Each structure stands twice: as C-alpha cells, then as structure tokens.
C-alpha cells in the first residue's frame, strides 16, 4: 500500500471516528441530569422565561433536530455560541488550545528524556544495583497517578522549597508582546528569554506530573526491548568488530528496540492529554482542560461539544502521526 493511500484511508477513518464522537457526546450531555437554562435563570423565573431562553439556544427542538442544526453549523465552521460567555465556541477553544498543546508536548519531551535516559542507563548497567534501583523507581512512578504526582510536587516545590510557580500559565505582571497564544514557542522566537523562563517555571510542575507515569512506562518497555535486542546476533557481531558497549546500545540495539516503545508512546500520549484536564485544574493552568471542567460545571453544552470534538481530533491526529513515524523508522514496513 502506498503512503498516499494509507494516509487517505486514515483520514477517512478519522472522519468516521470524529462523527461517532460527535453523536455520542451530543446525546449523552443532553440525556444526563443538569440543565443549562436552570443555571442561568434567577430563582423564581416563570415558565415563559424558561421557554424563551430554550428557544433562544435552540433547546426547544428535539435532540435529533438539534444535532442536525449543530452538525450543519460545524461543517461550516460554526461550533455555536458558549452559553456562559456568549462568545463563539470555536474562538474560545482555539484561544486555549495552544496552552494545552505546549503543556502536553513539554510533558512528552520530559517523559521521553527521563524514560529514555533511565532505559539506556538500566541497559548499560544491566544486572547491577543501578538497574534494580531503576526498576523500583519505575514501579513507584507507575503506581501513582499523575494528579497525585501533582500534589506531591506542589508540596515539594511549592511549599517545602518554593522555587517554581505553583499556579497559572504566566505571571500576570508580565507584559506579553505575543501575537499568538503559543507563548512558549513565541517567546523563543522573539528571544524574550525572561518570559520564557517565567513560562517554564509555571509549566515545570504540571508537565513533570504528567510526564512521570509516562516516563516510567517508556523506561520499562524500552529497557525490556533493549535487553532483548542486546542478545541478538547482529549486536554480538558488532561487539566482535571492536565496538564498545555504548556504541552497541545506542547504534545497533536502540534503533530496533525503539519501535514498540514508539507505538506505546503514541497511545500513552493521548492518555497524557486526557490527564491535562485534571492537572490544569490542579495548577490553575489556563488551558483547554481547565475550560472543559468549567464548561461541564456550567452545563455549557455547545462549549463541551466543541472541546470534546477538539480533543478527539487531537487524539486521532496523534495516532496518525505515530503510525507514519513508525513506517518511516521501520524499513520493513516502508516497502511492505
């Protein structure tokens, strides 16, 4: 199958997935208890007021009718208007998206660096106490979920030794000369390293909390496949050529051992993005996840729909990217 065909097929599957997600979320949030109209009206409002507001937001129609109206809007790029803020959903969501992308990608990078370093060290020192210590640390990191790591980090770096910012995305006093919401990225481009440092200080704890469990998974799986690969004949052959342990691990074993880990990172990265919802709340980080919790509390139906669709889009894109990377790294798949 050619690359183009593979991508086209995946895009089609993505569209179907997104449609399915749209259907499910749309119906579920209308069936569960809780009603946005009730939350907007002052106590003692009459039946007439309720009916008027319902009509205003299109909630007087049947659910399938509402769905068709909403879907045709979405297909024209109109995700509706947020009930609580009375602003277009698309604009709201897109303004928060960069913050969440930056946080997730930073967490991913941290996880890959920590996990990769632990796996390589554990392989280099296999059979020693160092490897044992790494295994124990992995087990601990895996058995605690990300939000608890968040609390632990707050205690450590927010209370005991307060070196990092504990909440928010950026210090409010700073003047931000940015034209996009990708603050971290833009601060580098504009060489504003003072702002960059402030952003990193805010992101340090939430991204580390998100990264720790993923780092442990990466360390465990990558170390396992590295150790298996190290026993293969081509690694032995490289040793007889005169190569030392470091070269053999990084050049001969790693490129082959990394493939299963890569697939896993793709899957786990979507979990990590899911984890941002609670972590952003914990650290009052102004991203999509924090907005999602507010939207649910306020029963802001159009906003919930918009956010869920966007999350679903991110998940499917991540999976597509992983598949393509996998094909690019594995020559056997490229030709097969």
């Amino acid at each position, binding site marked *: 199958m050619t690359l183009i065909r593979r991508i086209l097929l995946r895009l089609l599957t993505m569209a179907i997935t997104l449609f399915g997600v749209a259907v499910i979320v749309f119906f579920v949030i209308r069936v569960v208890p809780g009603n946005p109209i009730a939350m907007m009206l002052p106590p003692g409002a009459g039946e007439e007021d309720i009916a008027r507001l319902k009509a205003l937001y299109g909630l007087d129609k049947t659910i399938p009718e509402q769905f068709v109206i909403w879907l045709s809007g979405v297909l024209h790029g109109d995700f509706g208007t947020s009930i609580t803020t009375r602003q277009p959903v698309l604009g709201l969501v897109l303004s928060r998206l960069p913050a969440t992308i930056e946080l997730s990608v930073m967490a991913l990078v941290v996880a890959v660096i920590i996990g990769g370093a632990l796996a390589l060290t554990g392989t280099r020192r296999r*059979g020693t106490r160092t490897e044992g210590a790494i295994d124990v640390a992995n087990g601990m990191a895996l058995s605690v979920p990300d939000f608890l790591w968040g609390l632990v980090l707050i205690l450590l770096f927010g209370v005991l030794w307060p070196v990092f910012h504990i909440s928010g995305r950026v210090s409010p006093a700073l003047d931000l000369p940015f034209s996009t919401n990708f603050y971290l990225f833009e601060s580098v481009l504009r060489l504003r390293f003072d702002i960059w440092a402030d952003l990193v200080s805010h992101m340090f704890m939430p991204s580390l909390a998100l990264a720790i469990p993923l780092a442990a998974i990466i360390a465990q799986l990558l170390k396992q496949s590295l150790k298996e690969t190290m026993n*293969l*004949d*081509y690694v*032995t*052959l*490289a*040793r*007889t*050529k*005169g*190569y*030392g342990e470091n*070269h053999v691990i990084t050049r*001969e074993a790693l*490129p*082959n051992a990394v493939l299963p880990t890569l697939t896993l990172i793709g899957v786990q990265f979507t979990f990590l993005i899911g984890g941002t919802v609670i972590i952003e709340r914990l650290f009052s980080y102004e991203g999509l996840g924090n907005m999602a919790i507010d939207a649910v509390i306020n029963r802001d139906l159009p906003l919930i729909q918009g956010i869920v669709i966007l999350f679903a889009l991110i998940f499917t894109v991540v999976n597509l990217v992983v598949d393509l990377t996998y094909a690019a*790294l*594995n*020559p*056997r798949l490229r*030709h097969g």
Partner: protein
Amino acid sequence: MSFLTIENLSAFVGPAPILRDVSLTVTAGEVRGLVGESGAGKSMIGKAVLGTLPPAVRVASGRIVLEGEDLLAMRPRDRRRVIGARAALIPQDPLTALNPSRRVGPQITNRLVDILGWTRHDAQVRALELLDEVHIPEPERVMRAYPHELSGGMRQRILIASAFAAEPRLIIADEPTTALDVTVQKQILRLIREMQARHGTALLFVTHDLGVVSKICQSLTVLYGGKVLEDTRVGDFFAGPTHPYSAALLAATPKYTDPDASLTPVPEAVIDGVRAEIEAFDRMHGHV
C-alpha cells in the same frame, strides 16, 4: 608457528563446568574443525576467543593468546580493539546477524571506518571488491539494500565478505551453514574455503558435521562436555580415530556415498565411557 593458543581454559556457569581444561592451537593459515554435539562447548570456545561469552559464564583459569597478546589479561577496551582488527566472526544464522534497520553497505564498512580508521571512500571501494569476491551480482545495489530484501544465502555471503573485510588473521565460523538450505550450504562452504585459501586466513570452524570437516579442515578437535577428547590431523582422524567416542561419532555420520544406509547412533556404552572420563576429571579437579 601457532598464533592462536588456548591453554588450559576452564569456564563455569555457576558451579557447573562448561569448558574443562581446554587446550588447542591454530597455526597461521590453518583450518581447524571444532567438532562435538550440541552442548559440547564448541561454540563457547569461539565466544571465549572473541570475548562474547554470555555474562553468566565465568572463566576460571587458562590463557588465550592471539599473536602474542594474552587476551584474557587485557583490559576489555584494548582486547576489543585487538579482536576487531585481527579476528572476525562468521555467524551461524544470517537471518539474524544483520541489523534489520541499517543498509548492508555500512554494515560491511563500519569496522573499517570506525575501528580501523579507513576513509569512507576506501572502505566503500573495499566493500565492493569483497562483494564481488563472494560472487554477489550488482554489488552497488546490494550495498544500498536492507537485509530483509535479500535471501539467506545472499546474507551469508555478505557476512562472509564482512568477516574478510579487514584482512583478519583468524576467522571463527560458528556453524555457518547450519541455518541454510541444503543446496545453499554447499555453495557457502565452497565459498568459505575459496576465500580462506585466497586470503590465507586461519579458520576455526565450529561444526557438528564430520562431512563438512572432511571437506574443509586440516586438523580437528573433538569435544564432549567441554572437554577435548581428541586433537588430530584430519587425514589421521578419518583413517582411524584414537578415542572411542570419536570412532563412534565417525561411524554415526551418514555416508554421502550411501545415502540409503540406516543411521547408527553413538552407542550408549560409548557415551557412558565418556561421561565416566569426565566425572573422573571433575573429581581430580575438585569440581564435584
């Protein structure tokens, strides 16, 4: 002149001896067969020389001297350099001995460039020459191929070319035809003999097949349970082995001249005799 000498090599896995006081020599340009059934320790000897013993194996005593260098006494780093420059391995299974994610070319040239300091261009020219020597058509194309695009026989040819690349003085061939098709086996065996003769390299040929030994070796060492039972010239061996186990092994080898003859296993009595001999050895050395 002997340039590989193994003296009284003993190795253990935990308390269990796997090499028992093994001594053997290989002279320059000689082809020596290392013969024995699986578990006899023949591959372990090759691994001990190349420094690729599994971590569980502990060498207790003995010396391995390659061209005056006492390998076991050297620092690992220096030893790797000596092995990389002067010795090479032709592995057993060509399907797993090439790195699947790298092209063939660099896998032949990497030792020359990284370990021996050749220029990339010289190494490239040398690799093309070698691929031609091992009768690979279109060497330029093969250099750019990934291993999975080539057949098992082709891959073994590449590995042979790679083993001869740095003009090593010693090549250890670890059952290099066992994993191949019968039809390909013969070609590969012929190729190894041809390359060995052309380059004058000494060859330590690990095999369980006496038929192969008779075709390629000048001398052979028969092993059982990690112990040398017989060390002799090939001509003398096929004329009449001195050790009863060797004689039984020879009798058990299928004759190419008479493929329909029934196979005779090595008799139990002979095996028992060898085991008794090994037990006596262990008692004497306090390994029990």
